[in-house]
């Protein structure tokens, strides 16, 4: 299954399905919880037409601040209302000292942070009564790190029992920004934990820095890394992210088709949207 991130900018295209034909759509629950009026009607049409996966923005699993149980309560009701099986979040933090920052800040790769996050993942999984899926994020500098990113991610996966949303573009971005081998990084992950994949474009802003913008087409080296990854894992749902600089719909469908062609070559089994 190849899905596409749902954006209001091209809501009509999703509903008509004339050019864009994803197998499912992904939404950020924070953008839809408690929404009414025109957009609620649009969203209901989307939910009638497509299976929905949720990818959160504000849980802030790595935050020093307490978990927000009002948010979790609203989230749980939203997932139930729309019969959503997959809920994923970022392995980062977006709130600190009682202030939301609305972006993904890098967690210090440290043992105590692993323990902290593992405990919180277990709480969230218990509360939501579903497996939780954590995404490896792109980061532009390590902060107070005492271990490498790979050790950090694997420790959390192993100790929490959560699954991995493997963002292949983020692996590529991080390997470029921090000068490591992307394929070796993929090889080192607990690949049996991969439950979902994200693919996206990025923007290189200097000789040594790429920003994960979701605003460009996927480049060939990222497709190649995806192909490499697909050869090492069981079939899982794939999501194409495109948040800015939206191109003609036919270009997005072209990217979906390319991803589908790779998975058709690599995977014979069907991959359902179940966490």
């Amino acid at each position, binding site marked *: 299954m190849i899905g596409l991130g749902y954006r209001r900018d091209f809501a009509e295209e999703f509903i008509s399905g004339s050019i864009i034909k994803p197998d499912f759509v992904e939404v950020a629950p924070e953008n839809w919880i*408690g929404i009414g009026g025109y957009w609620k009607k649009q969203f209901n049409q989307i939910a009638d037409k497509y299976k929905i996966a949720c990818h959160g923005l504000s849980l802030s699993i790595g935050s020093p601040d307490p978990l927000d149980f009002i948010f979790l309560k609203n989230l749980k009701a939203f997932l139930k209302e729309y019969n959503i099986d997959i809920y994923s979040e970022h392995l980062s933090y977006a709130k600190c000292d009682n202030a*939301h920052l*609305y972006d993904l800040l890098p967690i210090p790769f440290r043992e105590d942070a692993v323990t902290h996050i593992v405990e919180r993942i277990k709480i969230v999984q218990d509360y939501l009564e579903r497996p939780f899926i954590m995404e490896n994020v792109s980061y532009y500098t390590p902060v107070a790190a005492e271990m490498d990113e790979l050790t950090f991610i694997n420790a959390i996966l192993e100790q929490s029992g959560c699954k991995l949303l493997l963002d292949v573009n983020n692996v590529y971005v991080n390997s470029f920004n921090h000068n490591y081998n992307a394929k070796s990084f993929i090889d080192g992950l607990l690949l049996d934990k991969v439950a979902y994949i994200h693919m996206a474009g990025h923007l290189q802003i200097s000789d040594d820095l790429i920003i994960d913008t979701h605003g460009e087409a996927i480049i060939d080296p990222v497709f190649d890394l995806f192909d490499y990854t697909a050869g090492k894992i069981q079939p899982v749902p794939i999501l194409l992210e495109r948040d800015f600089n939206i191109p003609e719909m036919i270009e997005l469908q072209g990217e979906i088709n390319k991803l589908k062609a790779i998975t058709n070559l690599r995977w014979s089994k069907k991959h359902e949207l179940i966490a």
Partner: protein
Amino acid sequence: MNLSLDTYTAQSQLAKYCRDGIAVDLLGLTPNRLSQYRRLVFNIIKDNIENAFPIAYKYLPAEIWEELVYDFFSIHPCQNYQVWKLPKEFVDFVIDNNYAKKHEIHYLTDLLNFEWAEMELYNMADKPYNYGSFEGDIINDKIKFNPEFILLPLEFPIHIYPPTIATEKKGNYFVLLFREKESGKIQFVDLSVWYSFLIEQVSQNDLTINQILNYAPQLFSNISIDELKTNTILFIKSMITKKFVIAIE
């Protein structure tokens, strides 16, 4: 919390730097990369606020707008997990810190409240919508309104004029904003103090027009109740046409 003080401090310092831009010395940083986080976070806040207040953004001097956004970003701890509700925190911040008075932009509070009201109404959760009949009598029976509305009192008529003109017309104004059920579009209706009072009393106290008319002499001197009654009936009929009045029973 399982975090050590060192780890918490590193996270706290990074978050603080993103908001206030004051340099921090964190262990293991790649040189010149930390500023990317401040830029990315600030752009989210800035874009969100600009998109929520297109009129204020257009009419305020650029340096004042930047001051408001920068101050908000660095001083105010954003509370809502839904970024689309952030503009409400911005409105409260600007009011609480008296920016309208400081910069002598007298219409500022009204304009921000007005622009936020439109956004809030457009997005807010659906309310139970109890359709009924129009078989009742306008004066003596209960009138039901579309429940998705905001009644906004204003000092400056920024719902009628551009801010540069509205600022010369200080007075008592009332605007009704409501969301059309079918289309989700927002309608605006300029109201007199009487119709504003009437909508408030019907919606909050479930009074009939006849009961509300009893208060008219206390509100207006030398008022002709018969004339007011006639005009009120015409007003209610116009609001039926606009689909703000949804039943009279």
